[in-house]
């Protein structure tokens, strides 16, 4: 039988400083069909510590996918994206940009930095939930994610 659907739990790292958006994303993912665990980093520095398993993050898994906001305190999402995609150990992890920014420059620069896709967060609540569902459907069901390859 071909393994077209993953039965494995999907580990998601959400990098987001807005607690409201974190909560909405968490609830939308809980309602979804795909088993997942959501980890949250509140800025770029926190996210890098998570990805490098530093300090309190010594025992966290490598995420299967990263949902990244662009406007973040300390180290912003653009810088973090460049750090991830320039790091041979981290660059395989798909990064979905999920931001309120509609700026053309942000869209172009994100793809140039090898973001896997760019999505603008809708302000409308129902539309926001639809976007999370659409991410879930595409990235967790249709796409085959890298297996994590813990070295």
């Amino acid at each position, binding site marked *: 039988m071909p393994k077209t659907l993953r039965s494995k739990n999907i580990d998601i790292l959400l990098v987001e400083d807005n607690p409201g958006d974190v909560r909405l994303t968490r609830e939308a993912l809980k309602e979804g069909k795909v088993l997942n665990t959501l980890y949250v980093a509140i800025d770029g520095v926190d996210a890098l510590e998570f990805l490098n398993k530093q300090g309190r993050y010594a025992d966290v898994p490598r995420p299967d996918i990263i949902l990244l906001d662009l406007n973040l305190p300390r180290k912003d999402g653009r810088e973090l994206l460049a750090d991830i995609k320039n790091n041979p150990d981290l660059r395989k992890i798909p990064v979905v940009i999920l931001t309120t920014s509609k700026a053309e420059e942000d869209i172009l620069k994100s793809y*140039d930095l090898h973001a*896997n896709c760019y999505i603008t967060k809708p302000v409308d609540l129902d539309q926001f939930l639809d976007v999370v569902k659409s991410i879930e*459907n595409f990235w967790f069901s249709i796409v085959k*994610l*890298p297996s994590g390859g813990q070295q």
Partner: protein
Amino acid sequence: MLDPFTILLVDDFSLDVELIRAALSRCKHKPGLRVSPDGESALAYLHKQPPHASAATPDLVLLDLHLPGRDGFAVLQEIKNDPGLAHIPVIMLTSSEDDGDVERAYDLQVNGYIVKPVIARQFMESICSITEFWMKTARLPSRVGR
């Protein structure tokens, strides 16, 4: 008015090409389709080499892994290392479920890796899901007037 959304499909297996064509004609959102049967012709098209001087840059590339001549990895690598093309989203659409192929594709910065479902109906549904996601949910670099 923006140009119609266009997909460049790089696939030499004619049955799959016909299935994708049939699927796209039934999807809710119907993109234009351009087919290249091998990597060389796909790259010539993307680089706008003759006879493709007036070719429009596609919004999305669907790339098979096993191609005559240069394989999908070589094509992917050339696109993602070319500053003029790197921004184009490339989806690997292949029958290979091999973990090594998946890892390598992501390491070469593929935008997504999709295993072709064996059952035709599922295959066609996944084609509509792919186009729906990239046309409606994702923001594309090609749609911001580059």
